[in-house]
């Protein structure tokens, strides 16, 4: 469980990036943090593994205050995948890159071997096992970065912009992977601008603006509220746009899921009670 209690944070150059944020993320929850550039999303999530410590207020991870623990100790339970993979890749081979954190945490060699194989397989990177990460494409490097964190199987996973530069197939795999983590009662927090991705996953959505949380609720409620989204320079998911247009005909407005949309349209067709 992650609890942020009225935290404020100012960068050394006096930019106040968080202006009083309170947020509780329960175990097993899937949360998407959204909001315009510079809203403070990355700053907020960096508090969850102790990379940043609040100037005021406190952050508790499983009941432990982050100021009382090292990043390395917190990281064992809270995995963090950075926005830009080039900020972490340094090894000669993909395999070693993935083993890096496992070695830091002191896993046994057999376990490391096993985890590396598992992570490579999970992100379809097995064929690049012995390749240098620097020779891979942008999207592939991003996956190596993700694999290097997933490998130690943290209880909570924080993803900063995971879908950038990923093709549809990889996005879909990521979505399935997150769903799989959900069934294992793991917590996933993702920062993203990708409305369609969020619409497909339908997580809890936390909307930020200028260092504050402006909305917090089910994806279905927030992503279908045009006024709210306008405030955060987000466009409605395409399905929601269609249903907003169809609302005068008696269709419900709060639809973001493709399957649900199809059911409603089929039902309407059957009963032919279109206005």
């Amino acid at each position, binding site marked *: 469980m992650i609890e942020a209690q009225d935290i404020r944070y100012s960068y050394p150059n006096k930019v106040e990036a968080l202006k009083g944020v309170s947020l509780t993320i329960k175990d097993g929850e899937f949360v998407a943090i959204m909001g315009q550039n510079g809203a403070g999303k990355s700053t907020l999530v*960096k508090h969850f*593994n102790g*990379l940043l410590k609040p100037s005021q207020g406190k952050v508790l991870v499983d009941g432990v205050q982050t100021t009382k623990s*090292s*990043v*390395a100790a917190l*990281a*064992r339970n809270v*995995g*963090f995948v*950075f926005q*830009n993979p*080039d*900020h*972490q*890749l*340094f090894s000669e081979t993909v395999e070693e890159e993935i083993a*890096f*954190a496992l070695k*830091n*945490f002191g896993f046994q060699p057999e376990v490391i071997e096993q985890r590396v194989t598992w992570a490579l397989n999970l992100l379809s990177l097995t064929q690049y096992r012995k390749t240098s990460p*620097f020779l891979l494409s942008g999207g592939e490097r991003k996956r190596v970065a993700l694999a*290097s*964190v997933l490998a*130690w199987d943290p209880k909570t996973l924080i993803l900063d912009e995971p879908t950038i530069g990923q093709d549809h197939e990889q996005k879909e795999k990521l979505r399935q992977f997150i769903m799989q983590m959900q069934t294992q009662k793991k917590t996933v927090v993702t920062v993203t601008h990708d409305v369609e991705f969020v619409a497909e996953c339908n997580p809890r959505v936390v909307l930020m603006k200028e260092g504050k949380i402006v909305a917090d609720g089910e994806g279905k409620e927030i992503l279908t509220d045009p006024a709210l989204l306008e405030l955060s320079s987000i466009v409605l998911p395409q399905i929601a746009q269609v249903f907003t247009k169809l609302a005068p005909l008696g269709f419900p407005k709060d639809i973001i899921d493709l399957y649900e949309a199809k059911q409603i349209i089929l039902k309407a067709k059957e009963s032919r009670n279109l206005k």
Partner: protein
Amino acid sequence: MSVFDGLRFRKVYSPIHNLDPRIKFGYVIAIFVVAIIFYQVIPLLVLFFMQIPFVLLARVQRQWLRSLRGAAFLATFIFVVNVATTYFTSGYHLTAFNVENAAAMTLRFVVLVESFSVFFLTTSPDHLGLALEESRVPYEFAFAFTTAVRFVPVLAEEAQTIMDAQKARGLELEKGGLLKRIRNYVPVLIPLIVSAIRRSLELAEAMESRAWGATKKRTNLYLLRLHKGDFGLLAITVGILVVAVYIHFFVHIPTIASLF
């Protein structure tokens, strides 16, 4: 890091910021030369205090103090080494004169740091590049220089992000013996270097696609022109040099010890 902070330009408007970088650089060099000429404490102290009006006029006192604080460690080191060497070479014997000599050496270093700090704090990289260009330095070099200066803070920020990313994967920079600690920095340095190279290649491509080097002769939007203030500073610079040379050759400078 704090030493670099004291050299980092921030956009402020002040009479000092508006001065021509070439004249300002001439002034710094003059201070540099004068600091080398004298090896006594009193003139070096005068030189030290002479910079303060400039700092106040430019309103950069906070950063300037920070650069001095950054240099304090090295200054202490210089002082200690100087005292120690005279102590050991003169057969375990130390006079007030020896200490004063060491202080003068240290002060010389501090004066150099402070004047360079004022120069870099009040001169934008763009102005500097322009000055280089107008001093007939080939544009390629001037450009490379200004770009390098401009990317220092970017690189520092990037190093921080990389450290964060590796810490998030359980890297503990402060762990282990000396050798281990140095090795701990490998996961930080490699991404830093790789991304700097990647960035410079991208920059080169972006520049070329915007017609870099298409014509031999470039025109500039801003041109450096000498103003009244610049002539004022030029006069001050020449004045300092003349007075310093005169004092050096014709005036006996007392040591502080002899004053008591």
